[in-house]
């Protein structure tokens, strides 16, 4: 009891699969599937692009959400079935390209083949010429060569076979092979590369190592996990805005260091002007404020350095009008302390916002100050991205201007009473005879930080090269056409009669215009007469 399927030998089954993969119909179906899968990927939220929207979806639609999650629908372009379709397309392409390429190589080596009955061809004329057959054939060859035809003379010397348009198949094959190359280059590049973001404060140096990224490092599937160790030192960050708050330009002036920390060169990373260094591409991504904050207590410096401030776009989406938020955590003290800070870089714009009720973008530094809140209790989360105050209580609040030192516990200013502070903001100076403060906070300097995107993708040049080949092949294939022309000269009593016949495999309407011109050239070269032209016209009809 053998089913029909089991009657196939292994060899036959493989041949069958190969034949199926090789057919254009299969390619058609696979391309359709690719399009369909991509459409799904653009309609459902995707984990790599918007994980928070995926989370929201899972909460809103638990059943479908779980189903989609299991099926890989939230990461379509990284799912096994997307890879499967791509791989099948890949195999299918190879399967159809190999025989096509072989056939083309054969066709190129082959000389054009002679034809017998020129009268039967779609385009045909015959006319008398003034020269003997051998000369006419000789001249016809020259005319055809000048028109870029490949020509072959007939063995009897009385005919020419000519062909043009190898470019069509060459172009098509170039296109398909280049598409294959593109697929390979993209997979290798994304697979072995990585990309992430680096936050660097002015005056600081960042090193390319996995733990130095902002926690969003994305590494390819086949990555070795090695990083370059190259360094980026931020000398200065500059931003320019219009008065309306519309950004015009951002630039990070950097010094690039090799893996041993030796400076190599200076450069500028600007919007749309990435910098390449040591196999890395560095892009301007974001920026923000980083006040230098010094906390002292009990005669020791507890914390000294820049605090990276995050500006949250409010409900109106105006990020530049929002104050910067940052934290200083002092986990070594008993009880533990933390200070949350709110930076106003431009107090003039800030006051205007308060008066007008319309948030004003704060794009300049004008009398910067911070509102601080001192918390006491237990720090639950040591990271500096936020502060969990569930086990803490508020001790005091106050403001600290640039150049001031304040007593954080009592919320009063110890030194630095100079410096402008906008009207309407009170400044509480510590009473003269008060005991030395236990915990002080200073704000000596306001700096900026830059966020750079650092990526390594070793195959970008190959992807670009493949793309260029795709385009060239495509244009070559689409705008060339295969044409075949035959010429035969016969000696008759009246003289030599030249027969010309031909057809085009593509762009027939163009050939209809080209053929008469070719005939005119042949006629001119062989001295064809006027009387014959009439005959030819009759023949064409």
């Amino acid at each position, binding site marked *: 009891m053998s089913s029909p399927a089991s009657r196939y030998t292994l060899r036959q089954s493989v041949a069958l699969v190969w034949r199926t993969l090789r057919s254009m119909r299969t390619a058609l179906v696979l*391309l*359709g599937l690719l399009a369909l899968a991509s459409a799904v990927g*653009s309609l459902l939220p995707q984990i790599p692009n*918007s994980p928070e929207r995926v989370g929201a979806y899972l909460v809103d639609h638990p059943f479908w959400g779980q189903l989609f999650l299991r099926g890989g629908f939230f990461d379509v372009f990284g799912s096994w079935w997307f890879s499967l379709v791509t791989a099948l397309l890949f195999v299918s392409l190879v399967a159809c390209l190999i025989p096509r390429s072989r056939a083309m190589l054969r066709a190129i080596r082959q000389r054009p083949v002679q034809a017998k009955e020129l009268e039967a061809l779609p385009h045909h004329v015959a006319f008398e010429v003034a020269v003997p057959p051998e000369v006419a054939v000789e001249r016809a060859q020259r005319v055809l060569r000048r028109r870029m035809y490949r020509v072959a003379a007939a063995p009897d010397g009385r005919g020419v076979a000519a062909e043009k348009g190898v470019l069509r198949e060459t172009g098509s094959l170039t296109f398909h092979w280049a598409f294959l190359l593109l697929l390979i280059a993209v997979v290798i590049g994304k697979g072995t590369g990585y990309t992430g973001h680096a936050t660097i404060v002015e005056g600081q140096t960042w090193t390319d190592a996995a733990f130095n990224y902002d926690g969003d490092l994305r590494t390819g599937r086949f990555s070795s996990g090695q990083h370059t160790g190259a360094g980026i030192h931020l000398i200065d960050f500059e931003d320019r805005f219009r008065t309306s708050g519309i950004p015009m330009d*951002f630039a990070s002036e950097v010094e690039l260091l090799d893996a041993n920390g030796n400076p190599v060169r200076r450069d500028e990373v600007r*919007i749309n002007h990435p910098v390449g260094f040591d196999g890395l591409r560095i892009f301007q991504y974001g920026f923000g404020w980083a006040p230098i904050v010094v906390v002292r207590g009990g005669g020791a410096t507890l914390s000294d350095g820049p605090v990276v401030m995050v500006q949250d776009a409010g409900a109106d989406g105006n990020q530049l009008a929002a104050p910067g938020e940052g934290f200083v955590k002092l986990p070594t003290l008993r009880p533990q302390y933390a200070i949350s800070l709110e930076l106003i870089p431009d107090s003039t714009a800030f006051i205007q916002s308060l008066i007008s009720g319309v948030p004003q973008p704060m794009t300049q530094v004008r009398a910067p100050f911070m509102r601080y809140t001192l918390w006491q209790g237990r720090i639950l989360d040591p990271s500096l991205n936020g502060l969990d105050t569930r086990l803490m209580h508020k001790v005091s609040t106050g403001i600290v201007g640039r150049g001031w030192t304040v007593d954080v516990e009592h919320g009063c200013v110890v030194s630095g009473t100079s410096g402008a502070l906008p009207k309407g903001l009170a400044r509480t100076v510590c009473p003269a005879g008060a005991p030395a403060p236990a915990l002080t906070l200073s704000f000596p300097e306001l700096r900026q930080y830059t966020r750079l995107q650092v990526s390594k993708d070793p195959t970008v040049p190959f992807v670009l090269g493949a793309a260029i080949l795709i385009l060239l092949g495509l244009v070559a294939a689409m705008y060339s056409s295969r044409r075949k022309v035959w010429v035969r000269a016969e000696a008759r009593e009246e003289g030599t009669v030249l027969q010309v016949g031909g057809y085009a495999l593509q762009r027939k309407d163009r050939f209809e215009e080209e053929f008469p011109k070719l005939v005119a050239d042949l006629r001119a070269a062989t001295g064809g007469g006027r009387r014959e032209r009439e005959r030819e016209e009759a023949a064409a009809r």
Partner: protein
Amino acid sequence: MTAARLSSDLFNAALFAYIAAMVLSFAYLAFRKRPFHVAALTVGWIGVSANIGSIVARGVAAHRTPWGNMYEFSSLLACLVVLAYLVLVEGRYKVQTVGGFVFAFAIFTMALATSFFYVGPTDLLPALNSYWRQIHVTSMIVATSLLATGCVFTILYLVKVRSERREVSVLRSQDPPPILGGSVDADAPPDYVPGADEPVGAATSPAPRRGLPPSATLDRLAYRFIQFGFPIWTFGVMCGAIWAQQTWGRYWGWDPKETWSFITWVIFACYLHARATAGWRGTKAAGIALVGFVSLFVTYYAVNLWIAGLHTYAK
């Protein structure tokens, strides 16, 4: 009068001229009186001139190339579609009866632009100020207009194929019209396998004095436009990738606009294949082109309106 004002006045003038040209073209299609055709062409050229003027004035008002947002894309799209029709279809292919449909498409695009996308001429974000962006956007609009025109002809082809089938069954007594392409191509050499280039359909109409051009003509026009548009689309997507590489540090990120431009590309590649595949040539291939048409519109409008992504700044 300010340049911005001039721009919107000329926009309205172009819209009205297109409406008039559409009515005149349909009148010519119905009654075959030459004056209708001459008038339609004249008004069409006036409309295109106004449209070009509007785009230039907009560029002057905004101090930049005037294709920075959806309103501007749409205006340019309409302009290019009509221009492609007047220069290529009327001028080169000498097909005179299908203008009404092209004008209708341009009107639809412009009406969408004024009702949903209007914004004053303003500055662009710095990320948008790239050389590659200019090339990318320009070629995407040009390609969209060519592909869309091709799809308009595909629709007409399908309509005509149906009516030809009906007419053939009515006019049974006559000889059926010669069919181009397929296995009954009269002037094809014996070893010839029809490729994508070969038009499908009847070469002549059973009743040539009425209605649309024969289906083979419409099919050839559809194919020519899509064939012209496809490499430009390819080029445009590649320029977009170069721009994205420069600006966001990755040439491809499956952002919705990127995804849909890829989908559209794949569908039109399918169309080109289907045209060369036995059993798929003709109406099935035309069906794929229509799916491409829908995808074109999703890429062009829906992604901006409903699906968020990096490209949303171009709302």
